[in-house]
């Protein structure tokens, strides 16, 4: 009888436990000075100056860390820790006037020596800054006085002020820099509180923030990491998170429609979904083949099929967020008949076979499948080979250029210059593009730069070194009463400074 009793007791105990747990209150009503944001990916460390993953900046940039300059919600460069600057006639000397009265969260005073430390750390021999190339024209850093910082450049660098605004250019303290990966210390409106690895990062309002007019309105903010789209949707609906600024699954967006508490906000990210080609490899070395492949693709259909109709079709490597954007989807519009003619001209009248290395992400897999069907219409057979992103893709495609075609979303803003990099996985060489990109660096006039960016976009649209598909939408889902989040994402971020709850 003993065992039976044991099981009987266990069953009763289990039942009681289940009932008790079911009835227990699990979510207190959120006080209106706190926000919980959901993110798909947990950052790999919290120092944006030593690792590339965008999730790091999405937690820390403008919340914990600030830069000499910053980027506003419209994508424009604005002063931040540098309140003003002067650029010499030849464009090779930048003199920054630093803001007085700025301190780091640990009390360290921000002045020109700290700024010099941060810049030297990013450009030095042992630097592991993911964007170290953006500092390569800086030859010397001078500090004539505590509030003045002078950057001496080897050549004019028109994008410098923009690059200095990036998360990877954040100003870090001399005492705290080494520990920023685990306990970030910056000058921003929020201080770091705690990181429960695998679960959440907690921030609190910085009471000593230098900009009293723009101090944070929230008392606390929590970033929660939820990778599974179904779990993301469930967390939103159950009120466990207040906002998902970048919801992961477009096909689940409809499920929020009937919800009175939530609002969906569709914007643009900087993620350009492009099918890159190895321009050094046959048949992709022939521009006519690339153009034919471009014309075989109906971008609207791709957006519809792969991403539930969300996303903006593009005709070049540029997003509507950025200055000088031109809609170039009309340069090689969907026209399978013309595509066949071009292939014939290029000597591929009977079509050919290619292999696309498509990463495991949903957007890449789905887009590749639709492309496969569309290429078949012009007699081109495409095999899909799934690869693992980032690890395997980086070593096979990016580093070794061992591929014909691939597909990936380029997340870095305004990165047209990747087509001029040598080596880079496109293996694309076009002196006229390089010339335009050089001119962009020669000027600091933003209108002139915008015009040049338009020119660069047109060159790429005509020459099609990669198949330009669409800009990944920013699928925002959040509580209707939550205000101040960015609609678009001109740089990967979750800026909380202006976020507040409406009564």
């Amino acid at each position, binding site marked *: *009888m*003993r*065992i*039976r009793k044991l*099981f009987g007791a*266990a*069953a009763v105990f*289990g039942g009681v*436990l*289940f009932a008790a*747990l*079911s*009835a*227990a209150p*699990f*979510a207190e009503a959120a006080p209106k000075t706190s926000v919980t944001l959901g993110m798909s990916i*947990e950052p*790999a*460390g919290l120092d944006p100056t030593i*690792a*590339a*993953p965008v999730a790091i900046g999405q937690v820390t940039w403008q919340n914990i860390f600030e830069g000499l300059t910053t980027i506003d919600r419209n994508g424009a460069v604005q002063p931040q820790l540098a309140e003003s600057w002067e650029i010499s006639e030849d464009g090779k000397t930048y003199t920054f006037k630093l803001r007085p009265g700025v301190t780091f969260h640990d009390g360290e005073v921000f002045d020109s020596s700290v700024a010099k430390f941060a810049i030297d750390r990013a450009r030095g*021999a*042992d*630097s*592991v*800054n*993911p*964007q*170290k*190339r953006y500092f390569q024209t800086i030859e010397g850093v001078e500090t004539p006085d505590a509030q003045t910082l002078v950057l001496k450049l080897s050549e004019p660098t028109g994008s410098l002020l923009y690059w200095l605004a990036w998360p990877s250019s954040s100003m870090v303290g001399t005492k705290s820099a080494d520990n920023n990966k*685990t306990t970030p210390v910056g000058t921003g409106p929020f201080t770091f509180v705690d990181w*429960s*690895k*695998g*679960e959440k990062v907690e921030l609190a309002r910085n009471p000593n923030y230098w900009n009293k007019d723009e101090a944070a309105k929230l008392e606390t903010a929590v970033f*929660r*990491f*939820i*990778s*599974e789209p*179904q*779990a993301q949707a*469930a*967390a939103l*609906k*159950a009120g*466990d998170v207040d906002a998902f600024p970048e919801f992961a699954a477009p096909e689940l967006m409809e499920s929020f429609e009937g919800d009175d508490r939530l609002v969906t906000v569709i914007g643009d990210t900087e993620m350009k979904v492009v099918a890159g080609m190895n321009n050094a490899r046959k048949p992709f070395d022939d521009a006519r083949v690339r153009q034919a492949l471009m014309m075989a693709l109906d971008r609207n259909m791709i957006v519809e099929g792969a991403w539930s109709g969300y996303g903006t079709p593009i005709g070049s490597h540029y997003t509507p967020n950025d200055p000088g954007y031109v809609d170039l989807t009309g340069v090689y519009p969907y026209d399978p008949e013309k595509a066949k003619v071009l292939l014939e001209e290029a000597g591929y009248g009977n079509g050919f076979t290619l292999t696309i290395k498509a990463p495991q992400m949903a957007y890449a897999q789905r887009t590749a499948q639709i492309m496969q069907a569309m290429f078949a219409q012009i007699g081109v057979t495409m095999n899909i080979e799934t690869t*693992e992103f*980032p*690890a*395997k893709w*980086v*070593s096979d495609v*990016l*580093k070794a250029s061992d591929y014909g075609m691939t597909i990936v979303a*380029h997340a*870095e803003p305004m*990165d047209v210059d*990747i087509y001029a990099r040598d080596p880079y996985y496109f293996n694309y060489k076009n002196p006229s593009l390089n010339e335009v990109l050089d001119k962009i660096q020669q000027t600091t006039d933003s209108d002139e730069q915008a015009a040049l960016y338009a020119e660069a976009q047109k060159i790429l649209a005509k020459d099609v070194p990669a198949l330009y598909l669409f800009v990944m939408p920013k699928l925002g889902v959040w509580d209707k009463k939550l205000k101040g989040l960015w609609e678009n994402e001109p740089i990967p971020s979750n800026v909380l400074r202006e976020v507040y709850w409406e009564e």
Partner: protein
Amino acid sequence: MASLIARRLVSLVVTLLVTSLLIFLVMDLLPGDPAAVMLGTSASPDTLAALQRELGLDQPLPLRYLGWISGVLQGDLGTSYTYGVPVAGLIVERLAVTLPLAAMAILISLMIAVPMGVEAARRQKGLVDLTVGLFSYIGIAVPAFWLGLLLILLFATNLGWMPAGGFPGWEAGALLALQALLLPAVALALPQAAVLTRVTRAAVLETLSEDFVRTARAKGLGEGGAVWRHALPASLVPIIAVFGLQATFLVAGAVLVENVFNLPGLGRLAYQALSQRDVIVMQDVVLFFAALVIVMNFLVELAYILVDPRLRAERS
């Protein structure tokens, strides 16, 4: 008994050393450079080299293995590439989720499987038996993560009784923490329970036809008494054997279920570390899993001896 444990311990250490070498070699064969993953698509070769130096990845293979394993033997599991904190601490933190989750799942699956299996065996081909059979078919066919999604839909989204996922941490109170683990534990337990139910039913059925059970009945013991007091204890060896196997499967199941329920457990740590090529975390976690399986098997073997007097007699 003591000599048995000593022998087991020696073989445990040897197995773990061999396993560690295997793990290390497999990790090294994985395509992808951890430094390149961390520095992304824009990194220049000199930055990559600097990071490889910093992580010690520029050293030759045997040196890296010796560095790792000598650290492990001294209790230093190394520092995570991505998190920047000691791996030992990460594992302990994650165990605070995975161990209670596994324990709850085991408890639930036993609570379901043993009574159901025994009752089904008693009423062979009856209504209870058929129902139990149906349950176990469904349970075996349904994967744990899908069941997890269904449970979330029903209990969190529709009824709002349970959180949809995530873990508040033990500091938020044991009740809240257990509540967060309940649905995932059920999702993990049901498929396990299904298998265990069938094994229990078969084992008890076989024992029921044995003479000593008939004797017990002939003595005048009620049918229930004969089954629960005589047949079940005698059927425990196969049940424990399968249970031991299943417990190790819980580890694999935890990877998926922890992802569905967004629980910061060991399974999710392993999954994340793999995708980010946090090789040192991968090595440590896999080694830990291996140790867990070996210890589990050892415990199961001890359990045989406890429930089966004949084995005890043979050993001594």
